[in-house]
Each structure stands twice: as structure tokens, then as C-alpha cells.
């Protein structure tokens, strides 16, 4: 088995698994379940094998390149499995596996669900290694198609509407992507990234306005998929109303994969650096705005969904700044500095995938058990969980780990990744907007943590109330049929795994950051200074300051004017048209900026 086969395996194995799971549709129920499990094992566990085998060469900065099926370069589909593809696969499979296990208990289940879920995993892997414009289009469409259906699997009517809006705006964006591909193909007659770049540089003005407009169309379509600020409207409803396991993958993985896949295009094509800079600026602005909207939400899962917009803002801010540096100076010192920024963005993307996946799964378990999603009405969640048969407070602890991670409290992974972002963005204006967003993040997770507070009378100021007296009535007793539901063992297993990963990611952060930076092409030792300063008193003091700021902001949000403002933000008009208006205006603005 050659390197090429190994590199393609993470995309092909989930497809084999999907076929196995789907074959179960024709079998008897018992064998269907066996086939489904076998399919999931082949599709979600086996891909780790090629990843481990490839790690030694890929993480040194190597890459496996080639054409799928060994076709001639003029007609073949090019792929490139490099450090970035490896890292994105790691992120994807680290969340997809536990989320599927969680779905065994919390639903949805069944051959069709598992097959679609695996198709999505395959498309994620394929997107990460695409090196051909049209192949990227196909991968993104398959990815989208699987996710539209998965969102509706929760069966809520609202989820159908969310999925419809998501489908419409995303399919329209993909038409613009196709127009961008058309523009570049017309200019160069090529689809492979490298060939397109060579073709454009051979032209007298490197393609001129047509090339820039094409790059803008492609970038705008991917920005929509990534939910960068003005193009985020489809995300909150889709992520909030999807089944918990699907929410975890959508928020954790699906919005980041297209972004990292875009890196390869932007560092090669004209206008790429500027596009990266603009997207980065949008992300840096999105981070605090997303947090403010999140803070005003009452629905637990919607609050988490808005946090995804904010957190992706962090990722895009550093990623965009890094891409701009790499594109400006692809072979010199700029490339190494840019790689460090992109590495910081990836580190946060990985951390976010783990802790947001964990939060969606644990909050999903809590809201199922308590049969209440409103964070103002849900109280005594710890007790509801205990009543549901959870002796060891696994879900409570898992939620605590997730919340502390996203609040950037040491030693969890969110602390390390946010420290990496601050160090990489030091001296830029983005540093300050991200800092402001961090304060808001703390505030909104204090708010979410209140669901674990003992029910009324609310005399205690404790956040967690494990020792609450059992005599007081709480929301769980009002919904006995679902309150009596046991917390499934699979849910505990999934959340415990992700919680352990969050902790490990935080403890091993210096090593992880070094590996990531090397894989992305940074100069050796570029992250050493950061590693030394990770737990320096100044950093810890800053964290304490942020936490205090968050507490103050939370108190402010609980006052009457704060509540009125939150209600105004929560009920702001949001329409179907807005999605398209944002898409068209965003693309037009990007094109105008590049061409000016």
C-alpha cells in the first residue's frame, strides 16, 4: 500500500462504512444494527490508522500529492495531503467519533442516519485534501447536502425551516463559487490550484479584474459556509435545532474545514492575501458581536450556536492575518510568521471543536433530561441528572470542563489556544476585539452555568449545586416522562472522552503548538517563546482580569436596562432575505475592494 492510498484512505473508508450501514436497510433489524456498527467502526475508527501511519512524514512538512486514480494530469483530479489536511482530518475525526457514540443514546439512530453521517465525514476528509477547484466544489456540495439532511433528523418543524434556509443560501453561494471557477478556468484552462496560479502569472496582468472577481466569488462562498460575520444568518437556527450530535459536528468541524481548504487557494492566487486580510478583519469584528448576541439568548443551544460565530471569528482573525503574510512573501520570513498565525488559528479551531462539541453534547443531555431549554427557567440541572440515574456527575463535570475551556481558564485547551492567538496577534487591533470577546464569553457562560444552580429560593450564589436539598420542587418534576429518562451510557462515554481531550489539549499545548506550526511550515523554534510564557504570572493575571470583567458584564446584563437590551437584540428582525442580501453585498464589497 503506497503513500497515495494511505492519504486517500480517510476519505474512502467512511464511504465504505456508509455503504455497509446502508446495506443494513435491506437486512433484518438485528443484522442491520450490526452492519450499522461495523460501518461506523470502518468509517470513524479505521481512518485513524492511515493518519497515524502518515504522521511521521507529513508532520515534518512533507506532503503526498497526486491524481486520484492515477489519471493523467490534464484530466485527473488533483489532491494534496499535506500538514494542513492531516490536521483538519485530526480535528474532524476527533469530534465525529464521540458525537456518533453520543447519538447512540440521544438519537438519531438507524442505518440511514449513520450512512449520511459517514458520507459527511468522508466529504470532510475529501475537502481537506482537495487541490482542484471543481473537486473542492463537489466536496463542499456533498458536505452541504449531508448536513442539510442531518439538521432535519431532529424532526422538529423548526429544524426543517432552518435546513431550508441553510440549503437555499448555501446552494446559491455555491453557484457563485461555480462562477468563480468558470472565471479562472476561462483565463487559464486549468482547475488544479498550482496550474491555475502558473497560468495566471503567465498572463500579462495576472488575469486582471476577472481573476480578482473570481477569487472574490470563491472566497465569499466559502466565507458563507464558514459563517464569517455578515454571512452567518443561517447558522444559529440550523445548529440550535439539529440533533445534539449533529450540532456538535456542525459547530465543531463543519464550519472550519472549508476555511482551511481555502488557505491553499488564497496563498497561490492574486488577491488572495488581501482577501485573507479582509476575512480576518471581519472575523475579528464578528468575535465580540457574536458574543453580545449570544449573551442575549435564552435558549441554551442557540446561545451555544451564537458562540460558534464568535469563536469562528477568533479563528478567522488569526487565519486571515496569517494568509495575508504568507501570500505577500511565500518563500521568506513572512511565510514562517504567517504559518505561526495560521497554526494559532488551527490550535483554536481544534480546541473549539473539542470544547464546543463537548458543550453541545453535555448541554443536550441536560436539556433532554430536564425537558427545558430556556436558561432562565432551567434550574437544578445537576439534580435532574442525578434523578435520571447519574451517580457519578459525569455530565455535570463534562459541562464544567467545556465551560472552563471556552472561558479560557487554565489548564484547559481553550486557555492555551487563546493565549496562542493573543501572542500571535499582539500589536494588532484584532488583539483588542478578541480580548473584548473573551470578557463576553466569560459572562455568557456564567449565565449558562446557572442552569446547575439550585432552584428557587435562589439564596445561594454558588454556580454548581450538587448538594441542593432534594425536597425543593424543580423543573424535572414537571416533566416526569422525560425526567425519568436515564442518561445513556454512550452519552457519558462521549462527553468523558471529549472532556479528557480538552484537558489533554491544554496540558500538552506547547508540544501540540510546536507540531502544528512545523506541519504548517513555520521555522523551527518559532513557538518556543510562547511556550515559556504560557503560565507566566502576567498571563494568569490577564486571565483573572478577564474573568472579573466577565463577572461584571454578567452582573450588568442582569440589570433592567441590560435585560431590555438583550431582549431587543434577541428579537431583532431576521429574515430569509437578509441571508441573500448579506451574501450579495459581501461578495460585491469584496470584489470592489480587490479591484479598486
Amino acid at each position, binding site marked *: 500500500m503506497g503513500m497515495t492510498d494511505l492519504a486517500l484512505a480517510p476519505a474512502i473508508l467512511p464511504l465504505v462504512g456508509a455503504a455497509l450501514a446502508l446495506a443494513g436497510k435491506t437486512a433484518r433489524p438485528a443484522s442491520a444494527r450490526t452492519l450499522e456498527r461495523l460501518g461506523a467502526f470502518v468509517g470513524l475508527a479505521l481512518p485513524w490508522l492511515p493518519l497515524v501511519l502518515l504522521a511521521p512524514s507529513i508532520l515534518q512538512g512533507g506532503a503526498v500529492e497526486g491524481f486520484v486514480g492515477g489519471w493523467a494530469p490534464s*484530466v485527473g483530479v488533483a489532491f494534496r495531503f499535506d500538514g494542513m489536511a492531516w490536521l483538519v482530518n485530526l480535528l474532524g475525526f476527533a469530534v465525529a467519533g464521540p458525537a456518533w457514540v453520543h447519538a447512540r443514546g440521544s438519537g438519531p439512530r438507524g442505518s440511514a442516519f449513520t450512512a449520511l453521517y459517514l458520507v459527511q465525514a468522508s466529504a470532510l476528509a475529501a475537502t481537506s485534501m482537495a487541490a482542484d477547484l*471543481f473537486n473542492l*466544489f*463537489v466536496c463542499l*456540495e456533498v458536505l452541504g*447536502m449531508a448536513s*442539510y*439532511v442531518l439538521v*432535519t433528523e431532529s424532526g*422538529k*418543524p*423548526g*429544524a*426543517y*425551516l*432552518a*435546513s*431550508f434556509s441553510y*440549503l*437555499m443560501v448555501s*446552494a*446559491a453561494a455555491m*453557484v457563485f463559487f*461555480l*462562477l468563480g471557477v*468558470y472565471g479562472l*478556468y*476561462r483565463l487559464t*484552462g486549468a*482547475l488544479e490550484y498550482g496550474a491555475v496560479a502558473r497560468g495566471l502569472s503567465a498572463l500579462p496582468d495576472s488575469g486582471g479584474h476577472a481573476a480578482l472577481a473570481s477569487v472574490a466569488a470563491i472566497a465569499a462562498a466559502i466565507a458563507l459556509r464558514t459563517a464569517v460575520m455578515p454571512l452567518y444568518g443561517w447558522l444559529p*437556527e440550523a445548529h440550535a*435545532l439539529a440533533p445534539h450530535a449533529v450540532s456538535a459536528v456542525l459547530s465543531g468541524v463543519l464550519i472550519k474545514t472549508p476555511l482551511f481548504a481555502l488557505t491553499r487557494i488564497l496563498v497561490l492566487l492574486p488577491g488572495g492575501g488581501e482577501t485573507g486580510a479582509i476575512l480576518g478583519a471581519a472575523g475579528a469584528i464578528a468575535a465580540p458581536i457574536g458574543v453580545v448576541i449570544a449573551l442575549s439568548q435564552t*435558549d441554551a443551544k442557540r446561545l451555544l450556536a451564537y458562540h460558534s460565530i464568535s469563536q469562528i471569528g477568533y479563528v478567522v482573525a488569526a487565519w486571515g492575518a496569517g494568509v495575508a503574510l504568507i501570500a505577500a512573501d511565500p518563500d521568506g520570513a513572512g511565510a514562517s510568521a504567517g504559518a505561526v498565525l495560521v497554526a494559532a488559528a488551527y490550535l483554536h479551531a481544534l480546541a473549539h471543536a473539542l470544547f464546543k462539541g463537548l458543550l453541545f453534547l453535555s448541554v443536550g443531555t441536560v436539556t433532554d433530561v430536564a425537558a427545558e431549554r430556556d436558561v432562565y427557567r432551567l434550574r437544578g440541572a445537576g439534580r435532574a441528572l442525578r434523578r435520571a440515574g447519574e451517580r457519578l456527575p459525569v455530565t455535570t463535570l463534562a459541562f464544567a470542563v467545556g465551560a472552563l475551556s471556552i472561558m479560557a481558564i487554565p489548564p484547559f485547551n481553550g486557555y492555551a489556544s487563546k493565549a496562542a492567538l493573543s501572542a500571535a496577534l499582539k500589536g494588532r487591533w484584532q488583539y483588542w476585539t478578541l480580548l473584548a470577546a473573551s470578557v463576553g464569553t466569560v459572562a455568557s457562560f456564567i449565565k449558562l452555568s446557572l442552569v446547575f444552580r439550585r432552584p428557587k429560593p435562589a439564596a445561594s450564589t454558588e454556580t454548581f449545586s450538587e448538594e441542593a436539598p432534594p425536597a425543593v420542587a424543580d423543573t424535572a418534576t414537571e416533566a416526569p416522562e422525560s425526567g425519568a429518562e436515564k442518561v445513556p451510557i454512550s452519552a457519558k462515554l462521549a462527553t468523558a472522552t471529549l472532556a479528557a481531550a480538552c484537558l489533554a489539549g491544554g496540558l500538552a499545548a506547547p508540544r501540540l503548538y510546536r507540531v502544528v506550526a512545523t506541519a504548517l511550515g513555520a521555522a523551527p523554534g518559532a513557538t518556543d517563546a510562547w511556550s515559556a510564557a504560557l503560565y507566566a504570572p502576567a498571563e494568569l493575571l490577564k486571565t483573572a482580569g478577564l474573568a472579573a470583567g466577565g463577572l461584571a458584564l454578567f452582573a450588568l446584563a442582569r440589570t433592567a436596562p441590560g435585560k431590555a437590551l438583550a431582549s431587543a437584540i434577541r428579537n431583532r428582525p*431576521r429574515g*430569509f*432575505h437578509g441571508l*441573500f*442580501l448579506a451574501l*450579495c453585498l459581501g461578495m460585491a464589497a469584496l470584489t470592489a475592494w480587490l479591484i479598486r
Partner: protein
Amino acid sequence: MIARILVGLLLLTGLATLVARRNLVKKVFGLAILNSAAVFLFVMEGAHSGQGAPIVDGSALQIVDPLPQALMLTAIVIGVCVTALALAIAARLHRATGSLDIDVIKERLGNGHD
């Protein structure tokens, strides 16, 4: 040139239908028209190098560029899948709310808050 303008108009028609119509099924039509415009554009582009069938037997030179056609076959298949899925979701929404009007659906679903 005239062909390009027509394709541009088709594109705008699709986009306008997609955005302005309140009926879900008409929105799906708009998406299908939008998609067709992109397909037209690619196929037209492929015909610049010649009009002959792309059968390479050593003699024919004025052939169309086969690559855009191959790409568009894929794009058409994807377009059909997206359309089918969108219609299926629209049917489910109709079953749940008794309407195909997006504003009415939103209202009956309680403004997105389930």
C-alpha cells in the same frame, strides 16, 4: 455577447425569484434557474474552441472543450439532488404548518422559536 447577456439575465431572474418569492416551491424554482445559468455559462465557454463533437481520432481539430461539459454533468446531478432535497423539505414544512408561504410558516412555527 448577446448569449452572455442572456445568461446574465437568467442568473438575475433566478436570484430574484429565490429572494423575492414567498412561496417555497417558487424559491426552489429560482434556485434551479440560477443553477442552470451557471451550467449555460460553462457549456458556452467550452464551445469557443470549436463546435465539433469531442471525438479525438487524429483529424478533428475544431472540437468543443470536453472538460466544461464533463464538469457540468456533475453540476447538473448535484443541482437535481439539491432541488429534490429542497422540495422534500418544503413538503415536510407544508405538512407541519399547512402553508408554503415562508412568512406564514415562520409565524406558525413561532418565529423560529420552537
